[in-house]
């Protein structure tokens, strides 16, 4: 999700910045120096995966992935997506400096929510596809709703555009659910230790 500079109102930018700083503080506290390579590799992987275009109907979309990252990493989703957004801006020219906080919150906060909702259920579950799909669907749906809220709350003139965002998110939710479900199903088969009893990815 990329909202560019110049669209959102000052209060919305401030709220986004506030949430982002809070999330980053919590997230970075969980990143011990031993975990730095892991966080960096996940940032790089998620940046790459979002560049893959997947055909749907006459058009194509890309995965948002905040469900998977949220399920795996919880609050650490904040530093991971911050890195991703910085790379988007540096390499691709997406996003904006002032909207960074809002964009980060839009992506990472649903990831954290999904972590609390589904991570414990996913661990050692016989149905990784189901919980992966739930995580993916809820995360991207929440992202779309938050984006629409941010737009609508910024100016009443944006409300129609906000509605378009919501409507255009519906097919994305279905596809992201299926993709996340498949991805988690594969991961739980080839690397089952990712989904052991501990609710958060912890390895030594």
């Amino acid at each position: 999700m990329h909202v560019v500079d110049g669209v959102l109102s000052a209060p919305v930018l401030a709220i986004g910045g506030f949430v982002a700083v809070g999330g980053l503080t919590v997230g970075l506290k969980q990143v011990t120096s031993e975990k730095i390579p892991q966080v960096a590799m996940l940032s790089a992987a998620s940046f790459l995966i979002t560049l893959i275009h997947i055909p749907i109907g006459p058009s194509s979309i890309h995965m948002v992935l905040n469900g998977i990252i949220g399920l795996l990493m919880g609050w650490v989703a904040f530093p991971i997506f911050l890195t991703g957004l910085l790379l988007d801006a540096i390499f691709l020219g997406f996003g904006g400096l002032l909207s960074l906080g809002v964009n980060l919150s839009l992506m990472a906060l649903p990831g954290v929510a999904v972590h609390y909702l589904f991570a414990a259920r996913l661990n050692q579950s016989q149905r990784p596809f189901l919980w992966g799909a739930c995580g993916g669907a809820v995360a991207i749906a929440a992202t779309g709703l938050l984006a629409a809220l941010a737009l609508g709350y910024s100016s009443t003139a944006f409300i129609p555009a906000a509605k378009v965002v919501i409507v255009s998110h519906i097919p994305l939710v279905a596809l992201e659910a299926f993709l996340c479900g498949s991805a988690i199903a594969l991961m739980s088969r080839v690397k089952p230790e990712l989904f052991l009893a501990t609710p958060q990815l912890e390895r030594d």
Partner: protein
Amino acid sequence: MKGVDGRVRIIAAVLFAVVTTACSRLDILTAIMFSAVLLAWFARLPVVETIKKLLSMDGFILILIATLPFTTTGTHWFGFSGFTASVEGGQLAMEIFLTANACMLSFLALVAAMPHPAIASGLRGLGCSKNLIQILLLTIRYIETLRLEYQRLRTAMQARGFQPRNNLHTWRSYGYLAGMLIVRSLDRADRVLAAMKCRGFRGSFPTVAEDAKLTKADYVFLWWFFLAVLFVVVWQWG
């Protein structure tokens, strides 16, 4: 502009974005857009590539810009088949368009054009968390390595006749591809951590290179930049 310190350039980019976002007059925004183009020229941004980046960003605001003239009430501008566009809506759309493009162009010129380690050390100089800087540096380091890994997986799929279509098989395959990339990146993280331990890593990165003192070039740049900002502020609100 090449010799200007990373910290200075990052601060300048933030200041540019703040002022531009706060501005609402179209004539001033046009002047700001012009100065962003100047910055891009000073930074020697590649023309075609930069325009491509701006256009792809404009794709994100297309919905907004296209709907605003019709959804904002005000003086009649033009209309067709039941839809009427207002002058105020058109102005609002133009304002967003100029702000977004000027901000992004100045960011590309001021920040993105720096070598990546310079961006990182600039952020560190501005008090960014040390772990975050390490994450950023490692991420940039491994993007190309992981991209090659992705390419290998992709080639392996194609070699077995995979063609993206609109069906469940395609989407499942993409899901597997993403899952596999994540698994491989986590495995690599383990190996990199092991390699770091083998070289004496015990939990903290050795700090090198203190931040350089700001040079004369930095101060000259800063003064010009502040003058320009002041000029815009007086023009808009004075």
